[in-house]
């Protein structure tokens, strides 16, 4: 990944190709010329059928794997803050110590790191739980803690892999509302991978649809619903129209 990019785009992926060698067979081509452009400060949703190579794409964007072809450019410090599907909070660390994990790995002193994350606790609905252990938190709270950890790394792009997938429907909706509001205040650049059409439409500024394997981005939707998005947004006719369009593109 290089660190130069145009001011407009926080993340650019050009012609990503990824294939895996298979003994005695043709190599398996998972990504076939995938393009993705994410503007600074937007929420870009990536949606696609199962087996479309989403985890392969995530590994490349998170810097864990090199693509066989094409390249990724990320602005700012050049790295993406990755939030995996499972909250992966370390059970032996308090919530606060989990939150500073990314900073610690980057070499920040514990005391400094703690001072950086403490202000965020209240906003993330975790006020008072700094010294609790993950086992003491509900599912929704754990996801918020994981997101806090991801945000605390101060990286230019957040990469969220189905952050609310494991939650029940009610909690999921609450979390979507909360994220929309919190994002509004901070303006992070987010790449949101999701299965949920309603979630993609509600949260995102742009939705990128993946084809089945070998994957490319086949459609791009601009979501021009007004911001800030609230519970009322779900009921608006534009929302329903976009939902139908997106559904049409997927099935």
């Amino acid at each position, binding site marked *: 990944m290089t660190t130069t990019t145009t001011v407009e785009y926080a993340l650019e992926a050009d012609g990503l190709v990824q294939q895996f060698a298979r003994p005695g067979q043709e190599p398996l081509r998972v990504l076939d010329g995938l393009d993705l452009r994410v503007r600074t400060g937007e929420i870009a949703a990536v949606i696609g059928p199962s087996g479309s190579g989403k985890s392969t794409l995530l590994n490349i964007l998170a*810097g864990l794997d090199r693509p066989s072809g094409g390249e990724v450019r990320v602005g700012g410090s050049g790295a993406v803050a990755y939030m995996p599907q499972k909250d992966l909070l370390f059970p032996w660390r308090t919530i606060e110590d989990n939150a500073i994990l990314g900073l610690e790995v980057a070499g920040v002193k514990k005391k400094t790191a703690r001072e950086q994350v403490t202000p965020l606790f209240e906003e993330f609905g975790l006020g008072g739980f700094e010294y609790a*252990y993950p086992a003491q938190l509900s599912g929704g709270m754990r996801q918020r803690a994981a997101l806090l950890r991801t945000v605390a790394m101060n990286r230019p792009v957040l990469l969220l892999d189905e952050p609310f997938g494991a939650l029940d429907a009610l909690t999921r909706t609450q979390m979507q509302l909360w994220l929309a509001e919190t994002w509004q205040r901070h303006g992070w650049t987010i790449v949101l991978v999701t299965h949920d059409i309603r979630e993609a439409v509600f949260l995102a500024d742009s939705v990128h649809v993946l084809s089945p394997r070998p994957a490319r981005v086949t459609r791009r939707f601009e979501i021009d619903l007004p911001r800030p998005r609230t519970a009322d947004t779900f009921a608006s006719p534009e929302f329903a129209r976009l939902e139908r369009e997106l559904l049409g593109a997927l099935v």
Partner: protein
Amino acid sequence: MNIAANLAKSVRAAWPPVLLAAVLLVGWQLLARDVIRNAEVLPTPTSVVSAGWNQRSAIWSNTLPTLRETELGFALSFALSWLIAGAMDFSAIVRRAVYPLLVTSQTVPVVALAPMFVVVFGFTLLPKVLLVALATFFPLTASLAEGFATADGEASRLLRSMGASRWQEFWRIRVPGALPFFFTGLRVSITYAIGGAIFAEYAGAEKGLGLYLNQMQQVFRLDLVFATVIVIAALSVALFASTYLLERWLTPWRRYERADREANAA
């Protein structure tokens, strides 16, 4: 007020096993005294206690060497287990090479090796330390290796995405994650530790509880045999209990995990 309530709670919890133990003791006393009437077959509990008390200085002077052997053997085992389990975690080749030998080390009976060690090393401390280490090594290493292996691959990926090195991964994920497994292995190991020392002493020792036990058996002093067995059992229980305390102290988050599981199951 709080003390009285806690005391009452402890009494309520303790009385069934205490009552059962009392009944068994009385039964044993009556059986030995009135039915069997042969101290070389079954001594009475009262004679066990009085004989043990009479010979307490002999028993005590034999306890210290056994504790010393156990401690040193176990310390050796502990150090080796972390080194070897760590090496196995870092390198797949080491793991493949070491694991079968590890399993084999468990199958070798200490009882058979002990006389050989004495012939090689004499009546010194070394053969007993080695035997205790041999007896305790496998459970520690195997549980530790397992603990390292169950480290969440996803967590490793997460840490790598944050830019962590392999070493950082080891310290931040594998070591804390392996601790609960380690304590399980520790408990198994501890039960073998004292037994290993005792068996090692059978083969050749100047002093020790195993030697004393053997001698009392040879002269048919069953009362002292029982007394020694009680001492050995008490030591083992104390060591065993201390592992729970240590575990609580070093892995406090586990308390909430169990409560969490119970709350979810409710």
